[in-house]
Structures are given as structure tokens and as C-alpha cells.
């Protein structure tokens, strides 16, 4: 929020390049650090782990990139994911008697999860556009609502997927195609699609225009409210996709599911170079941001350099450094 403005065009050229390369530089630095700390770091197993688990936040963060680009914010994604996971599990368990414990049930559950994601996004979106309430407040409110509902549904405990069904569903997280785990495949597809939508479609252009200057967008015959609503629905749907991948990983939902994902997603988006105040978004940057965040956790597990109490501090320092790298050397 601080940056930009001051015109110093001679320097700007350089800064722009750094801005593009920045997240990548930070990523490479982290990979080198990881390699030097542990020789298993680049093993297929570890790389798969890191990427697969970043898929949830990653898929959500792609949606968040759009939301932030239109100048909005969605704080509810983590709770929404918990809520969707909870209801999906309830639905799946309930369907077993009718549809049996096989793929039919799971497919219906998946569709339900997507549909509910769209619905939850619609709720956020309609309150923001028609209700004319700040996105921050709306999604802070729905954050509480979704989180409470999942606790209530779970009666304060945990909602668990039927054990046999879990075995059928498992490969969706743990399986893969051509040696690549499904979550990675789905994340990659979502990211590529997101990047294309952002850069190559009228919708992406409209998002940037609205975030950049809502009035200009309105005067340019853009249905501002409609685009905004669509964006929150897109975010909701992507939370649904993430949840579909998440349920087979842990097979349960509780009050702690998806905790603070919203913060992680927003952080990834900003680290990736999207502007928090809207008007400019970069999906591939978000992907890099997500992987950076995921790598930090992984690297902290690779060594016992510091007291685990200080993990949070190291994370904080690395997040700041990753963004400093983006800005380029100040003096240059």
C-alpha cells in the first residue's frame, strides 16, 4: 500500500523488472537454502508433498487474486472451506445408503460441494454488491457464520467421513496421473486457467478496470456489480474445488479446518505481486507466492536450527525478505 507513486522514471525501469522477477528470485533463493540444508529436499517425495499440500491454499489464492484485483477482499475463505468440507461429509455419509459407498456417491458429493461453494460466494457477493457493505465487513461476518455453523454441525467435535468411503475417495488426494499427484494436477489446471482468464479474457480485463477505477469501469459500460458478484462466486467455487481435494486428505472437518487460510491466501497473493488495493493482478505470481509460503514450512521442518517456538518469527522474516527481493535493491 505504501509503495508506488513517486516518479523516478530512471530507476523505475529497473524496479519493474525486479517486480516481475522478484517472486521468482525469492523462490529460487528458498530452493537453494532448502537444498543446502537437506539432501532429501529435492527428492520426488518431498517435492510432491510440498506442492500437493500447497494446492488447497493455491486454488483458493487464485480466486483471491481475482477478488483482490477487483479491489475486494474475502476473509471468509478458510471458514467457508471448513463449512463446505463439513456439509460435504454429511452429504456423503448420508448418500451411502442410497448410492452405495462408491464413486457415484463421491461424484454427487463433489458436485454438491461445488454448488455450495458457488452459493456461499453468491452470499458474500450479493451482500457486497446489493447490500453495499464493505467486503471486509461482509466476509468478516460470514467468516464467523461459516465457522460457527461447522462447529454446530459437528456438535463441537469432528465430522468424519465414513471410513470405507474414505478409502475410495483417498486417491483424489493421494493418487495421481503420470506420476503427478492429483492435487498438483488440479492446482496447475486452475492456475493456468486463472492466468489465461486474467490476461486474455474480457472478464479479467474488467476485473482490473474495476479495481483500478470503478467509475471509469462504470462509464465504460461494465456491469460493475455483476462482475463483482461473479468474482465472489468464482472465489466460492474455487474454495469448493479446494475442499474437494481437501476432504480425502484428512477425511474430516472440525473447528480447526482451514484455520487462517484466508490470511495465507491473501499473503500469497500479495507476495506474488498483486496490488492489495486492486487494479492489478497476477495469477502466476500468486502461484509462486503460495509455493514460497509452503516451502517456508517445509524448510523449517528440514532442520533443527531454531527452537520451534521461533518458527513463526522465521516465517515472518522470510515473508518480509521475499517481498524485499521483489522491490529490488533500494539503492540500485
Amino acid at each position, binding site marked *: 500500500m505504501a509503495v508506488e507513486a513517486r*516518479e523516478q*522514471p*530512471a530507476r523505475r*525501469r529497473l524496479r519493474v523488472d525486479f517486480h516481475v522477477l522478484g517472486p521468482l528470485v525469492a523462490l529460487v533463493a528458498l530452493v537453494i537454502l532448502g537444498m543446502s540444508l537437506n539432501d532429501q529436499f529435492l527428492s520426488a517425495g518431498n517435492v510432491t508433498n510440498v506442492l500437493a499440500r500447497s494446492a488447497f491454499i493455491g486454488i483458493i489464492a487464485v480466486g483471491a487474486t481475482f477478488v483482490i484485483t477487483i479491489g475486494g477482499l474475502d476473509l471468509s475463505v478458510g471458514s467457508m472451506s471448513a463449512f463446505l468440507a463439513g456439509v460435504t461429509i454429511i452429504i456423503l455419509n448420508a448418500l451411502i445408503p442410497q448410492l452405495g459407498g462408491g464413486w457415484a456417491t463421491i461424484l454427487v458429493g463433489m458436485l454438491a460441494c461445488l454448488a455450495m461453494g458457488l452459493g456461499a460466494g453468491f452470499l458474500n457477493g450479493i451482500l457486497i454488491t446489493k447490500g453495499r457493505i464493505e467486503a471486509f465487513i461482509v466476509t468478516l461476518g460470514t467468516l464467523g457464520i461459516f465457522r460457527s455453523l461447522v462447529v454446530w454441525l459437528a456438535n463441537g467435535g469432528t465430522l468424519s467421513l465414513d471410513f470405507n468411503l474414505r478409502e475410495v475417495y483417498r486417491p483424489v488426494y493421494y493418487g495421481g496421473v503420470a506420476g503427478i499427484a492429483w492435487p498438483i494436477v488440479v492446482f496447475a489446471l486452475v492456475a493456468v486457467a486463472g492466468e*489465461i482468464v486474467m490476461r*486474455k*479474457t*474480457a472478464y479479467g*480485463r*474488467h476485473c*482490473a*478496470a474495476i479495481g*483500478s*477505477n470503478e*467509475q*471509469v*469501469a*462504470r*462509464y*465504460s*459500460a*461494465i*456491469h460493475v456489480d455483476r462482475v463483482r458478484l461473479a468474482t465472489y462466486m468464482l472465489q466460492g467455487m474455487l474454495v469448493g474445488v479446494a475442499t474437494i481435494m481437501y476432504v480425502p486428505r484428512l477425511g474430516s472437518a472440525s473447528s480447526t479446518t482451514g484455520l487462517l487460510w484466508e490470511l495465507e491466501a491473501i499473503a500469497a497473493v500479495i507476495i506474488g505481486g498483486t496490488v492489495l488495493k486492486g*487494479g*492489478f493482478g497476477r495469477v502466476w505470481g500468486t502461484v509462486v507466492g503460495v509455493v514460497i509460503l509452503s516451502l517456508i514450512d517445509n524448510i523449517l521442518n528440514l532442520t533443527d536450527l531454531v527452537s520451534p517456538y521461533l518458527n513463526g518469527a522465521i516465517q515472518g522474516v522470510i515473508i518480509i525478505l521475499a517481498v524485499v527481493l521483489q522491490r529490488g535493491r533500494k539503492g540500485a
Partner: protein
Amino acid sequence: MSGPGPILEARGVRKSFGPVEVLHGADFTLTPGRVHALVGENGAGKSTLMKCLAGYQPVSGGEIRFFGEPVHFADSEAAESAGIVLIHQEFNLAEQLSAEANIFLGREMRRGFFLDRKAMRERARNLLEELATPIDTRLEVSRLSVSQKQMVEIAKALARNARVLIMDEPTAVLTGREAEVLFAQIERLKAAGVAILYTSHKLDEIARVADEVTVLRDGSLVAHAGVDEMSPDRMAELMVGRELSDLFPAKAGETAADVVLSVEDFEVPGHVESASFKLRRGEILGFAGLVGAGRTELMEGIMGLRSARGTIRRSGKVVRIASPKEAVRHGLAYLTEDRKGRGLLLKYGLRENLTLLGLDRFSGIFVDEKAEEAALDAAIRRFDIRAASKTMPVGNLSGGNQQKLLLAKTMLVEPEIVILDEPTRGIDIGTKQQIYAFVHQLAREGQAVIVISSEMSEVIGLCHRVIVMRSGRIAGEVSGEAVTEEAIVRRAMGLDGEAREAAHGS
């Protein structure tokens, strides 16, 4: 104090943005008590030279002298404390702050630790009253009209007690009447020994206020003379580099073609009441009126940009227009008067801005960037847009070129009815001529054009028929030979006898 020695000079000033040099060694002198005008085409480098003089941009070559001594202002603040104040071409106001807060921003009057709000309000009110803009100084700037904003901007500069006052197209958004108020202030400042740098594309104004004139073309000085030695026509020639024929093309006769748009009993709550008018094929219909008459609001209402009531017929059929998109679908397009706030995405490049309104023409599933590029090339040719690069943020374009781009953007949807709100705001005289020719061509081709303009000469020279608005109502209509300044002003003022007195400008 009003000694003859120069106070601020540019000596061989060069300025480059990246690889592009836009000023190639400009010399320029400001003397206390004199008004030195700077004229030139859009993108000639006028604003750039002014920013260099006022410390907003460092020079790339040459030097700035202050009282004969070379100086290097670190930033605008340093220049301002030396008494050099710039009124920007584009608004430079914090929209969410009150007019009073803006006027004293960074130079607040204090009483001890606290703001002396009473004194500031008093002073702000006086300043604005001197500028004949009696607004409530507590109003948020975002709620002011463009001309009121400009007056606040001028008041802000006046409040700073400048020794050198640099004004970048201060009258672009003012009517003749309001400009007169400004000129009176300029006279006063001159008498007080302030050195003034003045630019405008309204060349008759230059003749009116300036003592000397410098002409800039493509970043180089081409002439400098006393104002008596250079007629507006000569200025125009020097600027453009060729002789200019008549500014306005010959008007075709009145048309009796079919009505393409008819508006009945139109109401924009709070702004416009029971407005009715008709627009014919091939017609250029002018809308005149004083500032705040509600012309903009009427058009925005028609375009679905404001909630409004009333009947709109498109070629006889009643249509409902609830959003700008629907308006475009019905063949209407509107060029906003506020290019910075409502017209262009300043951080984006030319291509994105050009196609934003008509983007569906360039997109199936994906946006066809090649087609966009082609459209941009065509627009650059057709509207003579001068940009150092097609990818530069349009915020860095010269003001006039921004306006041309905005016009290109509006025309890209190939509207049958074009509503142009202050279309030549900040446009140089050569380009103005092109735009007028362009409007005529549109009319000849059978499109219908509405022109809202606060430049009386523009309304008179261009339009077949003129509707005059006053306080949100249509006060009258003149057409054909009857389109004269007096007739318009009389209706705009709602007066009869005093009409002649009130006629100025043009």
C-alpha cells in the same frame, strides 16, 4: 519588487523520459509583473517544461536559474518555499478532503498545536469568493463539479502567496464567464509583481492576458515575441507548423431527417426536471448552459449512468436504458467530461484503455490482442494521438492526447448517436479543427451528434441547433441562423435585458 530582472529562467533545458527526449533545450524567462504565455500542440512539452521549472521533475540537461543563480530544486516543496507554485493541468486535489483542507494542505494555519480552522475557513471563503465560486468550503472536493474543482485548485495556488505562479491550462474546464474571474485575479497578481506563466489552447485568451508569448513545437522553441507582435492566427500557425484554414467546417443546412432519439419528460432527481428534446439523423445538436445547468447529468441519466425517470424513444420505439451497456446496445455512446476520474484508467496502457468500452468486439472467449493492436494503430492515425510508446501508462500522456484517446475509445463502439461532453477540453487548435471536421463527417454519414460545450464559439460554430439549459430545465432552443451568442446567453441566464452584458468569452 517589480524590477525588470528575470526571476526564473530555463536555460537550454532538456528532459527525457527513458530513451525519449521531449524537451530539446528550451529557454524561457519569467519576469515579475509579467504574464508569459506558453503555447504549443498537445504533447509539445508545455506541461513538462512547467514541471521542470516548478521542481516537480528534475531536468536531464541545461539549468534552471532563480534570480540569475543556477538552482537545483530537490522537489516541489523546495521550489514552493522559494515561492514557485504550479497549478497542475490535471486535478491535484485530495477528493475526500474538504475544499478548505485542500486549499491549505501542507500549509495549514495553526494556533499553537491546533489548526486555526476558523481563520482558514474565512480565508478559503474569501479566496473562493474572489474567484466567484461561493461554495461551502466544508464540502468534500469529490462532490464539486469540475469547474468548481479547478477554482479550488486556483484558490490553493493563490493561498500560497506565490512569487512565480505557473498555470497549466487553468481555463480548460472553465466557462468564459469563469475565465474572466480568473483573468481579473491574474491582473491583480501582476500588479502585485508576481511572475506568471500561462498556458492555454484558447488562443484568444492568450491575446487577452499575456504580455509575451513563446511557442513550443515538438519540444523545441520556435518563436518568442511580445503579445502585440503575434496574432492568435500566427500563434496557431507556428504551433502547428502549417497554415490553418477555417476552424469550423461549413455547416450543412438543417436536416429534416427522421428523429433517431427523442427524450420526453426526463427527470434526473436533484439535477434535471422535465427535459424533452428530439435528435435527428445527421444533426449536430448543441447543449449550452452555465456550469451546473445539469447538462452532464441529463446525458448521464439518458445513458443509464444515473437513476432517472422519463421516456426515451429510439427511432420511435420506446426503450428502457438501465445501464450504459444497454445504452451502447441501442447505439448510444457518451464521452465523459471528466477524463481522469471517469474516462481513463491512468495506470494502464493505450490499448487497454482504447478497447475497454467496446471490449466485446474484440473478444470471443479470449480477447484478440492483435485486433486490439490494429484498432489502436488505426485510432492513433485517425485521431493523431501522440505517445512516446503504446505501452506507457496513459496517465503519462499529455493532457490533449489523453482527450484524443478518450474520443477514440468512445467512437470505437461505432455509435449512431454520439454524446460528446466537452469534447475539446485541453485540445490544441490544430487538433480541434480535426475533431470538428470529424464531427461533421459523422453527421454527414448519417450519425447524430450531441455536443455539450462551455465554449460558446464551439457551440455556435459547430451545431445546427442548440438547446439551452438553465438550472436543470430546458430554457430554450435556437437553430440555424438564430444560433448566436446573445441568443444563447439570454436563455442561459433567464434574463432579457442584461443578456448583452453577460456575454463574454469566445
